């Protein structure tokens, strides 16, 4: 049956199982929007294309399915850039479809013509410029295959207006993709597997580094089986939080720049690191020369180019994590590392662990209080979508994630403005989940126009704005490393309660810890999106901290005496 290119686009999306797309119409994509009404696909109209990518990204992170974005040419397409880079750095499967000027006008600087395939080349796994209707289906099918196979990532398909308007026969079978299979990662050699097993079975002080790849590979059960069988404690990267349960007895907590001190110490003193689906980002290693100097290193990653990139490893295991672990598990010997686990426990006990949770409410409200209380009230079962900055780190420290895909955050790119749109996407992917936005006053102001999208689409998310009147993380760096010169970090905010009112949603302000629980309860009871502004201590900092470029064990601790004491108590 003959179809227009625009119809082929929607037909392909439908057959790929797409139910929801996030987008914004415009001239060069108009034929596609015109055909949209014939197809049972929900379109979420955003207020800015950057948010469309973040929504698709949140949708993908919450569900594991590929998120889809639609935008027009020129500025519509360039507005996708930050979102695509965010997804690229965090390995999130997305397909972005952009309209392009007619093929006859390509290269003429036509109205709203931008070379978006050129621009997005380094921030997509692959991209396409489609100029004929008959080429649309192969490109879209391959885009979905590339986005979700191997190490996932975003793919962009730029389709000229005449290709959308032209006619072709949809040959679904003929359009089946094959090129994504060219580089399916090989399984590691038996020699390397045996070497890894020998190291695991001989280790006295092993630590598993648990990364995002566990989630992407669906390898939680295998990772826990390995940890439990050989009694190996695991430390999580930021994106590894929730990939393995925080409440597990072998879970140490987050590693890295704002990781717990005992976690970083365990890594530095380990005799074996087993890196599972993580990539030794500078935020988790500190100074490379002094990173885990005593440890042999085994690195499992589906992306072979990540292995030996920054940290030289002793056994490279390129391959899908779940399959690699399944191959190894039968030969892993049960072990007892009680002395090692006890030692880590002792660091945890007497190393002046940050714990500000049980302090009496002295009139100050601390962000950590908010995170801790939110964790308790939601029983740790919410999907929390954070923005980027201090609140993001406090969330990671005080909201303990047991469930998979329960923390959604921009890790690699650190994209401010991510939280609200990504949360809307997450809620649409998992309507049954309780979704919380945790954002700072700075990042929230970048994309809060999407409140109207939530209202228009009838999406309920709960929003916690952690307002300290500063771009807090930058202020913290200025305080620690720039002699307290607060250049351009004090930031004013609108009256968020009135702002909520203008959007027609519930809003309130909390300034005392004693008011927190009731406010959270009211927000949860609201049928629609609800916003709480938490006015927190203005010049609080995130501790402990490894300064950029410092060794991992060289942590800056909370100054003492401080209104916020550090105690050795375990999390409640």
């Amino acid at each position: 049956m003959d179809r227009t290119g625009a119809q082929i686009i929607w037909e392909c999306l439908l057959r790929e199982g797409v139910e929801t797309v996030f987008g914004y119409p415009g001239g060069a994509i108009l034929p596609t929007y015109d055909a949209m009404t014939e197809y049972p696909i929900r379109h979420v109209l955003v207020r800015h294309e950057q948010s469309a990518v973040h929504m698709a990204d949140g949708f993908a992170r919450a569900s594991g399915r590929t998120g889809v974005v639609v935008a027009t040419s020129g500025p519509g397409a360039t507005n996708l850039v930050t979102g695509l880079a965010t997804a690229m750095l965090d390995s999130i499967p997305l397909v972005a479809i952009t309209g392009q000027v007619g093929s006859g006008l390509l290269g003429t600087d036509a109205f709203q013509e931008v070379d978006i395939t050129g621009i997005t080349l380094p921030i997509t796994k692959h991209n396409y410029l489609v100029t004929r209707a008959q080429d649309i289906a192969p490109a879209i099918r391959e885009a979905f295959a590339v986005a979700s196979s191997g190490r996932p990532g975003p793919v962009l398909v730029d389709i000229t207006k005449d290709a959308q308007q032209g006619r072709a026969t949809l040959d679904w079978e003929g359009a089946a993709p094959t090129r994504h299979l060219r580089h399916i990662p090989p399984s590691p050699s038996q020699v390397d597997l045996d070497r890894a097993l020998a190291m695991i079975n001989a280790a006295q002080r092993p630590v598993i580094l648990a990364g995002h790849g566990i989630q992407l590979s669906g390898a939680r059960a295998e990772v826990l089986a390995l940890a439990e069988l050989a009694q190996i404690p695991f430390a999580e990267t930021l994106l590894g939080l929730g990939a393995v349960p925080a409440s597990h007895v072998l879970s140490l907590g987050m590693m890295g720049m704002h990781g717990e001190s005992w976690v970083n110490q365990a890594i530095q003193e380990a005799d074996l690191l087993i890196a599972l689906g993580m990539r030794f980002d500078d935020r988790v290693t500190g100074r490379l020369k002094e990173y885990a100097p005593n440890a042999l290193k085994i690195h499992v990653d589906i992306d072979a180019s990540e292995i030996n990139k920054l940290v030289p490893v002793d056994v490279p295991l390129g391959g899908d994590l779940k399959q690699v672990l399944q191959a190894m598990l039968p030969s892993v010997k049960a072990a007892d590392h009680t002395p090692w686990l006890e030692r880590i426990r002792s660091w945890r006990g007497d190393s002046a662990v940050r714990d500000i949770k049980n302090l009496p409410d002295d009139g100050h409200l601390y962000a950590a209080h908010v995170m801790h209380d939110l964790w308790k009230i939601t029983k740790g079962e919410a999907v929390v979508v954070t923005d980027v900055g201090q609140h993001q780190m406090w969330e990671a420290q005080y909201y303990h994630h047991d469930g998979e895909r329960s923390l959604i955050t921009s890790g690699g790119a650190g994209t401010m403005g991510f939280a609200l749109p990504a949360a809307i996407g997450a809620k649409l992917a998992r309507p049954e989940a309780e979704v919380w936005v945790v954002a700072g006053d700075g990042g929230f102001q970048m994309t809060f126009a999407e409140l109207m999208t939530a209202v228009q689409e009838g999406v309920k998310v709960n929003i916690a704005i952690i307002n300290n009147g500063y771009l807090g993380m930058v202020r913290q760096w200025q305080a620690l490393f720039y002699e307290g010169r607060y250049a351009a970090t004090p930031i004013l905010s609108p009256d968020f309660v009135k702002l909520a009112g203008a959007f027609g949603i519930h809003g309130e302000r909390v300034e005392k810890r004693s008011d927190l629980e009731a406010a959270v309860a009211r927000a949860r009871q609201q049928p629609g999106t609800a916003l709480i502004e938490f006015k927190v201590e203005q010049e609080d900092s995130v501790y402990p901290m490894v300064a950029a470029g410092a060794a991992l064990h060289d942590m800056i601790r909370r100054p003492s005496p401080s209104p916020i004491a550090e105690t050795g108590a375990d999390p409640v």
Partner: protein
Amino acid sequence: MSHVLVIYTDDEPGVLTRVAMLFRRRGFNIHSLTVGPTERVHVSRMTVVVDTDEATARRAVEHLRKLVNVLEVQQLGHGRNVVRDLALLRVSTRQGRSEVLQLVQVFRANVVDIADDSVVIECTGSLGKIEALVDSLRPFGILELGRTGAVAMARGLRSEDSNRLAAVATVAPGSSGAMSV
């Protein structure tokens, strides 16, 4: 240390950009890059010479293998390759044509054009040979120099090994008619 990479790619617009962008983005220093068709339709072959250490060269290979348009990457071993460069030189003959022509013979190069006071010389060979020829001719006055960069092939591959590469090269050269930019 220079490393020679042979890359088989789809013969599509923009593939060269993808490869070149990858090298730029990851900071791999390209010494030379040549590209041309192969014995297979729709398959191009690039020879890239990079100046880097062994670990970085291996990483470059792994990064190249992630490109959808790349069918296969070989890192040629040292000393087991044929590496050839082509140079065209326009050399002044004002200081003596016969001496120039003698050098051409010594280097087993060819004269492909003769003008009143200059000749155009074509020379194929290893990078070292071409550099030696250029050095020898410099005193006469090199008016123009054009070089292709290296094309390389492994020595001593048995035919079944070559067939394996050929088989790799047939993996669906672009089921999509869409231009990969």
